[in-house]
Every structure is written in structure tokens, then in C-alpha cells.
């Protein structure tokens, strides 16, 4: 078994190609340990054959295990499904099934994921999606979407209800058809690709663009200065603070607590305005570029950030004290939409959705980059797994991120002399594989890149944390009132476009 560190590249031929039954057994054995989870499992066309690669993150050893197997074009396009034993793999097998038409035998839920333009079976249209249904006189179905009432993103939600109670929720995504992964290969310039990566999910700009640039840097063996990595991680934590604060406000809106909604909205603005002062964009676009940055973090910015944080912290604590102790808020959020630790482990949730039900899964801790090695951060868990747990966890993570940023600012001197300009014409190593994990605010972002024999990108694989977590939202809704759907949905705040790549 090949083990590599986070944000490293490796010769693709070094990944041993296993026979599928052998691969099957090894995966089962590896994933029986709760400290390991699959971060990516995908296939790509290698000449005419299909090459499958699975990356398993090992939190104990702090590295990533790579496994692979090959399905020749003349073989029967059918494999035994791993999902039967390991539910967390369902989404990856579904994706492979959709893209390449591989039948996974005994897959319990082999449904389309995103209706990409280059899917295997183009006869299957989005309107033919095979919804689960229960035949009963007493039950009724409620369909919501794909046009979103709040005009965010498209997604169809099909509830099977018994009166006000939801028995089952099925979420159908795939209305956007963007073809992002293909665009990464079509675009040859790393600036274009950088821009693309910023737009994979508009709310995870730093999260996704960081994963991308680290892949490119790993593939071209550029050494990244420590200061640059620290700057990037600062941006990452700022993004986390901003989005979490916005989410807390949005949850207040859904609970009709408008005082909280407004104050948290104002607070979020303070943080994103700082990001704008730093890089000219409130969401951090144009900040992360391969091998350097035109927008270095300076001592002046440091002073400004400290004053922004001081102001933020004071008001945030005051408002959080009021909001989190408010009986009507507790009454609204407590014991709603619980996902137990066991369910979360089965689903293989990541990030916030894992930590809300007591699973310690945080890439910043288990697979830290230079910044988090130098300034370690502890992950925080809450146990209950309900809306209030997610609401609470957001507050705790904000505090933790602020403390981390303060620690960095106090102990690190930013020197503008150390900063380099970005390099867009990096030569990528041929026949290589690179993987980069990054703890964005939603959870673990995973990008994989594969180059061909002349150093061009052959395949680019993106995995947004939402891919794992959408199922958790479905489970949250079991035996919950249908009117509790909005607060559940908001408390996860999963990405539609992270799914509809």
C-alpha cells in the first residue's frame, strides 16, 4: 500500500494496481477502522481502460493511503458493490456508475448524482429520476424545488409525509450541469484554472482554491514559503468565521429571531470587508494563486485585522450570549433533526457535520499543512447531533478560529520581502498523481489531479464535503415535522454546486 502525505504528488505507476477482489478485501479491512475514511474514489479513462483510484485518509498515521484497480475495456463492465458493507462509499460508486456506466452489483441506491453532460447514459433525463416511494392511502408526498424560494440554488426535495411528520426525504440534485472537472482539463493556463477553482462553490472560495493550488504546486515540485502558507491559512480561517457567522444569522432568520439575524449579519460584514480590504474581493477571490501571491499579508493588514477582530469579538460574544441562552431559540433548535454518532459514522460525514455528532474528523488536525503544523489547532466536537449542536458548534469554531488567528498574528512577523509573485506557467511532472485535502468551513475538500506522459492534466477530481453530508440531511429529517426542514437545511448549509460540479 502506498502512503503519501497531504498535498504531495507521486508517480502514478507507483500506485499498485490490484485485482478487484483483492482491492475489495483491503478496502473493507482498512475502512473497518473508524480512524480511516475514504476521501475520494473515482475512475478515469486510461487509454481504453478504466483506472480506479481510491484515497483513504488515515487520521492515526496522518497520511493518505492510495489504492487502485483496473477494469479493461473488454471485461464485463460490472463490479461488486462496496456500498453494501460500507455505506459511506455509496456516493462514489453512484458517481462512477453515472459517468462510466459501470454496474455495481447489489448497490442499494444506484441513482444518478448530477446528470453531467458527459454521463454514460444520456437517455436518462433528469425528469426520469427514480424517486423512492411508498404506496399508501395515508401518506402524501410533498415536492419542493428545484426552483428555490429564497433564490439560492436549485435542488429538488421529495418528502414522504404522514400528516406533518416526514417519514422519508429524498434530495435530488444535479440541475446545474456545469462540467467543472472537464473545464480544468480544457483550460491549459493555471490562472484560468485558479479562477475556475475559486468558482467551484461561491461560498468556499478559499477552501477550493487552496486545494487546487496545492495540487499544482505538488505536481510541479515548487517549494512554498512558510509565510505564504500561513497567509493562506489566515484567509481560510477568516472565511470560516465569516460564513459561520452568516449561518448563525440565517438560522436566526429561520427561527424568526430577527434581532439576532440582523446583528450577526452586520458582524459577518465586518469580516468580509476585511477580506475585501486585503484582496479586493469580499469572498477572497484572487487571493490564492499558485506558488505565490500578488497580495501579501503585511504588518499594516495585521494591525487592521487585530482591530477588526477585537471589535467583532466583543459584539459577537454579547449577541451570542443573548441568542444562545434565549429560551425560545433553545426550544426551537433542541432535539430537532438528530443524527446519532452511529449514523454519522455509517454515512461517513465530514467536517462540521461529523463533529456535531461527536466524530473528531478535522483535516487541520489529522493532515495539517505547514501553517497548522507550526500553529496547531484542536478540533472541537459536540455530541448531540441536532440543530442546536450544529448551531453551537458554529459558535465554538468561530471562537477557536479567532484564537488561532490571534496566536498567529502575535507570534509571526510578516515580511513583504519574503513574498513571491505567482507562477502561472509551471511545468507539471508527467505521469503523476497529486492529492490535496483541506478543511474548508464546511469540511474536508479533496482535489485529485492526474497528469499524462507529457505533463498535461489528464484528470481532475473535485470532492466537496457536501457530497458526504447531503445524506445526513436526509437522515435528519426522519420523523421530524416538515416545518423543521428549513432550520435543518440551514444548519447544515450544504453546497448544491459542490455536488453539481
Amino acid at each position, binding site marked *: 500500500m502506498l502512503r503519501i502525505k497531504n498535498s504531495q504528488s507521486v508517480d502514478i505507476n507507483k500506485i499498485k494496481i490490484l485485482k478487484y477482489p483483492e482491492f475489495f478485501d483491503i478496502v473493507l479491512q482498512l475502512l473497518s477502522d473508524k480512524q480511516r475514511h475514504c476521501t475520494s474514489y473515482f475512475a478515469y479513462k486510461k487509454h481504453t481502460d478504466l483506472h480506479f483510484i481510491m484515497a483513504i485518509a488515515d487520521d492515526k498515521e496522518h497520511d493518505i493511503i492510495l489504492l487502485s484497480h483496473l477494469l479493461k475495456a473488454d471485461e464485463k463492465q460490472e463490479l461488486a458493490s462496496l456500498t453494501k458493507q460500507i455505506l459511506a462509499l455509496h456516493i462514489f460508486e453512484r458517481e462512477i456508475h453515472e459517468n462510466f456506466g459501470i454496474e455495481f452489483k447489489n448497490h442499494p441506491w444506484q441513482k444518478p448524482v448530477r446528470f453531467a453532460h458527459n454521463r454514460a447514459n444520456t437517455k436518462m433525463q433528469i425528469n426520469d429520476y427514480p424517486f423512492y416511494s411508498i404506496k399508501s392511502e395515508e401518506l402524501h408526498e410533498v415536492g419542493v424545488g428545484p426552483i428555490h424560494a429564497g433564490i439560492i440554488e436549485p435542488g429538488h426535495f421529495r418528502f414522504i409525509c404522514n400528516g406533518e411528520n416526514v417519514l422519508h426525504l429524498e434530495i435530488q440534485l444535479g440541475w446545474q450541469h456545469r462540467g467543472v472537472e472537464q473545464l480544468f482539463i480544457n483550460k491549459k493556463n493555471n490562472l484560468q484554472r485558479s479562477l475556475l477553482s475559486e468558482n467551484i462553490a461561491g461560498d468556499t472560495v478559499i477552501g477550493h482554491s487552496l486545494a487546487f493550488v496545492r495540487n499544482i504546486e505538488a505536481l510541479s515540485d515548487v517549494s512554498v514559503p512558510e509565510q505564504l502558507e500561513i497567509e493562506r491559512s489566515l484567509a481560510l480561517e477568516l472565511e470560516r468565521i465569516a460564513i459561520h457567522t452568516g449561518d448563525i444569522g440565517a438560522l436566526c432568520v*429561520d*427561527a424568526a429571531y430577527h434581532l439576532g439575524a*440582523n446583528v450577526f449579519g452586520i458582524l459577518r460584514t465586518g469580516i468580509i470587508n476585511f477580506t475585501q480590504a486585503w484582496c479586493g474581493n469580499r469572498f477572497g477571490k484572487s487571493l490564492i494563486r499558485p506558488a505565490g501571491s500578488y497580495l501579501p499579508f503585511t504588518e499594516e493588514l495585521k494591525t487592521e485585522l487585530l482591530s477588526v477582530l477585537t471589535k467583532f469579538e466583543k459584539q459577537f460574544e454579547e449577541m451570542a450570549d443573548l441568542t444562545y441562552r434565549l429560551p425560545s431559540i433553545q426550544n426551537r433548535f433542541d432535539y430537532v433533526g438528530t443524527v446519532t454518532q452511529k449514523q454519522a459514522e455509517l454515512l461517513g460525514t465530514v467536517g462540521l457535520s461529523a463533529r456535531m455528532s461527536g466524530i473528531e474528523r478535522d483535516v487541520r488536525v489529522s493532515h495539517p499543512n505547514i501553517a497548522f503544523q507550526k500553529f496547531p489547532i484542536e478540533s472541537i466536537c459536540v455530541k448531540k447531533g441536532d440543530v442546536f449542536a450544529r448551531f453551537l458548534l458554529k459558535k465554538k469554531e468561530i471562537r477557536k478560529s479567532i484564537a488561532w488567528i490571534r496566536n498567529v498574528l502575535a507570534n509571526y512577523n510578516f515580511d513583504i520581502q519574503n513574498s513571491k509573485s505567482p507562477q502561472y506557467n509551471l511545468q507539471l511532472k508527467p505521469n503523476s498523481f497529486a492529492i490535496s485535502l483541506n478543511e474548508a468551513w464546511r469540511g474536508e475538500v479533496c482535489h485529485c489531479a492526474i497528469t499524462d506522459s507529457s505533463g498535461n492534466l489528464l484528470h481532475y477530481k473535485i470532492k466537496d464535503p457536501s457530497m458526504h453530508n447531503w445524506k445526513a440531511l436526509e437522515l435528519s429529517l426522519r420523523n421530524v*415535522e416538515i416545518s423543521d426542514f*428549513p432550520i435543518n437545511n440551514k444548519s447544515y448549509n450544504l453546497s448544491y454546486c459542490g455536488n453539481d460540479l
Partner: protein
Amino acid sequence: MISLILIFISALFFVGIITKVKAKIAARKMPSVFQPVYDVLRLLKKASIYSPTTSIIFRIAPLIYLSTVLMATLFIPIGTNKAILSFEGDFVFFAYLLAIGKFMMIIAAMDTGSGFEGMGANREALYSMLVEPAFFILAGSVALFTDNISFNDLFLNLHIDSNLSYIIGIAAIYVLIYIAMVENSRMPVDDPKTHLELTMVHEVMVLDNSGFDLALIHIATWLKFSIYGSLITNFIINATWTWYWQIIYFLGIQAIFAIIIGGLEAFRARNKMEKNPQWIIMLSAISVVVFLTALIITQKIILN
């Protein structure tokens, strides 16, 4: 006649004041108090759009809704200003007039055939059903207390001046405030500001109404607030006061009522939907307190 005019005047300001208070508390820029009036004037100029799946019921419902509410206002006296219509037992008629309007809105919502609106309609029906006992126990107790069964005489003879009768006054005002909140689909039962259809009660029922019809529904809502505000006023105003004090008090109490509603809405989150029935039944329980107090005062129950 004076009472009717007063109710209309206060209705114009009511929702505006609530919005203003909520905006002030939430540190937002405040709209004008007349903003709801401007909105309704704009809507009145517009034509209504009807979905082809709806029938005549959907078209006449807003009109019937408004006319029942208008008719109900005719029964409300303010202090010594008599109501235009009055007969013995008119409070029962009053309650069911409002119920007819609500019933029409509920079947109109079902008429659209939308899943959301059906859901809102059955929630609204449930809450109206649960809030009904609270109103009747309250009205019945006050009737027992004053020995009169029409709004006019009932409020003329209502003198809240002894220790025990203060309990009646306070509990009745509390119950009436919350009945008004439930009837008008305000917090904590419903959130009129929400954009989430799945959590709506009243708002989702009128999703398909537009233009002129929507304006009628809004006007009916104002009037309902004003009606309940007038009922509350009657518990406070004393019939022996001169007429201009009564009017000043009426307007002042209406304004305070609106401010209280704004405050109640701003400082709390809404209920979980499944806790609403429990919460509404609590109002009936408080009405029972009024009833028992009335029994004690009228010496139907003798306490030793």
C-alpha cells in the same frame, strides 16, 4: 358610529407601528408607519391573477373574508360609544362571523390544489379550532361577571375595581393579546416575515392571491388587530370617564398594544410547530382562571 370610525383609524396605523417597532429593535432603518397603507393602495390598483385550477370559491373568498370582518367591527363598542349593532348573545355571532371568513380562506386555499396551501390551511384550521374555547370561556366568564350577554351592555357594566376583578382584567388582556396573535397569524405561532413555505401558516394560504384580492386580505388583517385592540381597551376604559378621555385612551392603548406585539415578536424566536397546539391550549387554561374568578366574585363558588 364613533367606535366604528375609531376602529378604522387605528387599523390604518396598527401594522405600521408593529413593523416600526420591530425594525427599531433589530437596528434596521425604519419604514414609514404608513408603508402598509401605501402597499395596499398599490395593490388595490392592480388586477388579480387567477390560476386556471381555481374555482369561484377562490375568487369570492377574500371578499367574504373582508366583509365578515367588517361586519364584526359593527358589534364592537368603545367605552360608552355604543356599537352600531347589538343584541343579546352577539359575542357568539361575532366569533362565528370571524370563523366564516376564516373558513372561506381555508377552503379557498384548498381550492388552489397546491400542496403548500393545503398544508397551511390545515394548520390554520387546527389553530383556529384550538383558540376558540379560549375566546368563549373568556367572553362567557365576563358575561357571567357582568350579568349581560351583549358586547354593549357587557362592557358598560364591566367595572374592574376590586382585588379579584383585577385578576379578570389582567388575565383577559393577556389572553386577548395572544388570541389576536393567533388569529392574525403572528409570532410565536406563525411568522409573517418568513420566506419558507414549509413553515408558514397563514402566509402560505394567501400565496396565490394577488392584486386587489391580496389588498382585501391585508385590510381584513388590520381590522382584526384593531378589533382585538378595542376589546382590550374596553377592559381598561371606565364608562364613567368623559368621552374625549375615552378616545384618547383608546388610541393610546391601541398604540401600546401594537408596540407590545412588535416587542413580543422582536425578542423571541417562534415556536416549534408541534408545540403550537400545546401553547394555544394554554390560553384556554388562563381563560379558565378568569372563569373561576368570575364564579368566586359572583359567589357561585363560596370560598371559606
